């Protein structure tokens, strides 16, 4: 397991989408947009907020949930769009949506593992990519049985795992993400894959991590 550096978004930062002409920029753009939708879907799926907090929308021709509360929407949006430059550079290894119980111990993690091909040079077929990503949303919507039932008063956050910590001085983009020490499980977690896709420009895998049974005993 490669060591990666978890970071969480520093709220209040704002990130503007840039027009990126490079294939990586294109990929990152699509991916970030997708992540925003997917993370919202995860949060909605987990039922952490009342159902009224979301509204049905269509994205990539799939019915998805969209947060109605501006703060929730803003948090997710700013978090993922803050990742854009790092995704583009291939610095982001994983993006995790982590659900904690009241003791701040992670109960469930939705992990998006990304691989942006840095040497991919040709034009990205946006429609192809979106078609592949669509299957994640479909799979996600039916994967509730795979997930655990969350206890009351849960907390959740988005954490990104970087291959290397970005230099804070190097760019202003880094400022909205701050290093964090997310609590880790003592035992290696159980992994339940939800969806994987691997294309030339982009590899993306979504899987669940749950604490292993022994962990629960210890905890």
């Amino acid at each position, binding site marked *: 397991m490669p060591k990666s550096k978890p970071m969480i978004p520093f709220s209040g930062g704002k990130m503007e989408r840039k027009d990126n002409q490079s294939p990586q920029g294109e990929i990152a753009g699509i991916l970030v947009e997708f992540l925003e939708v997917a993370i919202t879907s995860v949060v909605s799926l987990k039922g952490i907020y009342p159902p009224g907090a979301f509204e049905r929308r269509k994205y990539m021709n799939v019915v998805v949930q969209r947060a109605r509360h501006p703060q929730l929407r803003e948090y997710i949006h700013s978090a993922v769009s803050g990742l854009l430059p790092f995704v583009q550079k291939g610095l982001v290894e994983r993006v995790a949506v982590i659900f904690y119980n009241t003791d701040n111990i992670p109960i469930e993690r939705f992990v998006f593992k990304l691989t942006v091909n840095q040497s991919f040079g040709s034009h990205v077929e946006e429609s192809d990519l979106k078609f592949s990503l669509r299957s994640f949303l479909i799979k996600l919507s039916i994967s509730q049985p*795979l997930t655990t039932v969350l206890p009351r008063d849960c907390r959740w956050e988005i954490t990104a795992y970087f291959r290397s910590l970005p230099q804070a001085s190097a760019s202003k983009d880094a400022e909205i993400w701050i290093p964090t020490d997310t609590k880790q499980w003592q035992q290696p977690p*159980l992994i339940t894959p939800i*969806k*994987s896709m691997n294309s030339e420009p982009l590899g993306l*895998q979504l899987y669940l991590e749950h604490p292993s049974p022994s962990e629960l005993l210890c905890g």
Partner: protein
Amino acid sequence: MSLDSSNSKQRSINSTSSNNQSNTSNSKKRKSNQKTLGMAWGANSLSGSRPSFRSSPFSDFGSYMAVKNKKLQNQFDAQASNSSRSDSYTKPIFDGVSIFVDGFTIPSSQELRQYMLNYGGRFENYFSRHRVTHIICSNLPDSKIKNLRSFSSGLPVVKPMWILDSVAANKLLSWVPYQLNQLANNQPTLSSFFTPKSKPADEGAFTNPICEVKHETGLLCLKDASKDASFSEAGNSFEWRKQATEEHNKLMCENSNKTLIDEPSNRYSEEPKEVEVLEPTNLQEDDESLANNRHQSCPEQSSASVSSHCFDNRGIRGSPRSSVIGPSKQRHSTLKDPNFVENYFKNSRLHFIGTWRNRYRNRFPSLSNGWTKSTNSDVSAGTQKTPIIHIDMDCFFVSVVIRSHPELNDKPVAVCHSYNPKGTAEISSANYSARDYGIKAGMFVRDAKGLCPQLVILPYNFEAYEEVADKFYNILHKHCNRVQAVSCDEAFLDVTDLEGRDPQLLASAIRKEIYEATGCSASAGIAKNMLMARLATSTAKPNGQCYIHPERVDEYLDPLPLKALPGIGHVLAEKLKNKNVQTCGQLRLISKDSLQKDFGIKTGEMLWNYSRGVDNRLVGMIQESKSVGAEVNWGVRFRDFQHAQHFLLDLCKEVSLRLQGCGVQGRTFTLKIKKRRKDAGEPTKFMGCGDCENLSHSITVSIATDDIEVLQRITKQLFGSFHIDVKDIRGVGLQVSRLESADTSRQAPERNSLKSWLMSASESSKEQFDINSIAKECMGTDSEGKNMDGNSSVLHNASVENSVHGINKPSNGEGCSNQNSSVPPLCDLDMGVVESLPSELLSEINEIYGGKLFELITKRKVRGDNSSRSLCFIPPEPALEVEAETSHNSDPVSLSRPAVEMRDEQPILQELQTVPDSGARSNSVAISTAGLENNDLVPSSLSQLDTSVLQQLPEELRADIFEALPAHRIQETSAMGPKTDNERHPLGIKSAADNQPGSTGTGLSNNLWIGNPPLWVDKFKVSNLPILKFVADMYYKANSPESLSSILQCTLAESLHPLDSTCDAWNEAIHSFNELLMSYVKLKIVVDIEEIYVCFRLLRRLSTKSEFFLEVYNLTFPHLQASVDENYGGTLNIHRHN
């Protein structure tokens, strides 16, 4: 508001100060005011300062400057009259020259001004198109280069050296050679050689005049013309000014190439085409004849399958061959591009001298050898007489060139490849008047110019050199039939036979004739031996002759400084000097023993002999060159690896041409590299090699070659072994030694090589057997079961027929030996076998293929090999299959099954045979076995056994047959294993089992998923295990067969045959399936954990239905979890705890 107030203040200060300050000191400030005109510069606005000017004596800036310039001129004139009056009463050097110094110069503008003062020129402080004649500067900013015309107004831009040199020469030199480097870059850079040429038609028009100008710079008479020429150049549009200079450089090169091309290089340029086009066709022919031979070797009665198979083979081999030809042809076209190496050697004097010898030998082939032996008897007698004349042209390289310039006869002239006077190009030859100035060969032009500013530098004229050298030798050969050419301009004549003629008269006659024919003088030395004759010549030079009477040798040698002796260089001379020995006379006092003790036996003897004027060498004993090579140590700068590779290829081409020119081929190849030392900066010599480490690697192949492709391959290999940053390379040389004559090396017996061994095999059939067995061993034992049995299956029909009919056709044997006598084409080699050979054997085979093999192997490794060749990586099935059969034999029903299987397998096996690399070779071996061994009563190879017949035989009889097999055949039985599926001989099983671990150990399990269908499908399909076959079938039924999950899904859907758990093959099947799964996990774990997850979920479900899958699941699961943990830091949640 506040701005306004400060404005008015400033204004007031301005108006007062301008009146007070002296005009000259304030000029700069004024100028800056002038420049900023129009800028919104509030505080210093001009409208404010204008009134102050109105009140000054100057009405405007222009009139002020006019007055200032006039004043400066007056000052200058006054100083000039002071300084110049003192030392010169002739016409001053810089009369009419008026310089303007731009920017920083060395010497400084003040010093230059002083020169102008002293030597009658003018110095302008301010540039004016009307007053200035030359702009002096050492460097120009890019913007000024780009906009040269508006900067210089078309005036010459010259470096300050021009003034210094003119002063040194005490006359006005042409400024053209001193033109600013940035404008006239005479020194071609490496990259300019590589840029593709494209000449706009109109450019030739102005480059030619420039060439002329360059030619005549030394004549100092074309100042005006040269000006015009360069102006016409400058007059062209500025956008492509830069490009034009580049283009001009290139054309300069080309021009010089055109005129300087020497005959051999001309000839060379055509040669490679022929050579390389011929080569493949030859091979093709070989191939065909080989295939034909093979075809012939098949007995006429042989079944159709054999012969058609041969044709198949040929067809297949045709295709890789043609694909090989394709790229190599392409490469020819790129080689035609102008390149550095070619140009380098075209312009190299050393190269001319080096290659001249071949030319000479071609011209006088009979003379250079043939009579040397007969002269032995004359030696003792000859020492008494004066039989040797040494003739040497006087400063050959210069005098040939200045033949056409009689006006230069008395002037100092040097020959050099570059005109650039500041340059660090080396003088290669200087005439005697130049030598009087201390100019020597090897000196930098810069230094030479310093010693003798009026030195005229001319370029080489290789055409003329060749012409003169030819005439020179024609004359020598006319007078004397014993000529030893030392160089193009130097030779020894042995005139012992010409008793009737006085050697001195002869020498003068020859010299006279040479002068009449060539216009160049030669000097001659006459003495008793070559050493003395040579020394005599050095005394005679220039244009004289010297006779050293045998009795006066000592007298001559006594005062002679040691360095004059040939073979004594700096180091040796220095050592001797330390011993207080500086002349031959002193050297003679030292005993031979002590000389040999101090300097080694050879050198000591040489010293002893030479100091006594003893030289036993014979005229005509041309030392055969021991090595041929080419080395480039100038201008070597590589951008990147590709660049270096390209250069290497060119170098190989050159070396190959030289080898061919000498008619030799070499076995040892040494690549020398000059690597810049870490602390070494740019060398003083422009583009020189500077301080370098010398590295070299060499490789020896068993067969001498001059083939360019082989050379290139070996060179690449050698280059790879350096592991060096190409940017540090300052010189590259390739040398070929262990030379053999091209004719003899073709037939040279080489007993120790594998090839010769193979060749000699045809001599006796016994040996042939051995080879066959060895070959079989090679093919068979090394995880090569499949291809082998593929062949044998087709062949045993033929062989059995052979043995039955007892046909013993001589043609069979011939055919076989033919096949064996030539190394199979590279593409026919089974790489799997080759790679598993012992390293010594491998390197020997590599040598046979001239290094191609290693290259191929590394290529294969890099490629990860998804070609059909990887078939040979499959662990052989024999054990599986034989075991399966043994398990079946208890079951009467299953007896029919193998036969059916066999039929099923045929197409696959056919496929296997058509794999080009292994098929052909193993085939030929197998056929040859068939052909040769039919004179044996008992077939010595199992390949000749029809297994179906064998199968029908009673048990005891079969055992007898196996026992009758020669011991060395036993291994074959293992190789034949899978095909001879009914053979239940224990030996076969045992050896197959022996084979198994080794081959599976090397198993590249990932390869199982390579190909379409993936390898495992074929593997499982041909296996005897029903469950594996079943899975293989599922591959074809599955919706998306590329994913295992889909196959497992299918497997789950289909009802499973209950597996007999007592079956022997049980473990084997589990092992195979486990291997398949693990390779799949390896393949997918990083990118597609979902697929792995699905697979194992399915597998788990399968495991509830089938014992087999349960066991596989249990075996694989820990590996899977370890792999997941490694990649994801967790375990796969197969069992779903929640």
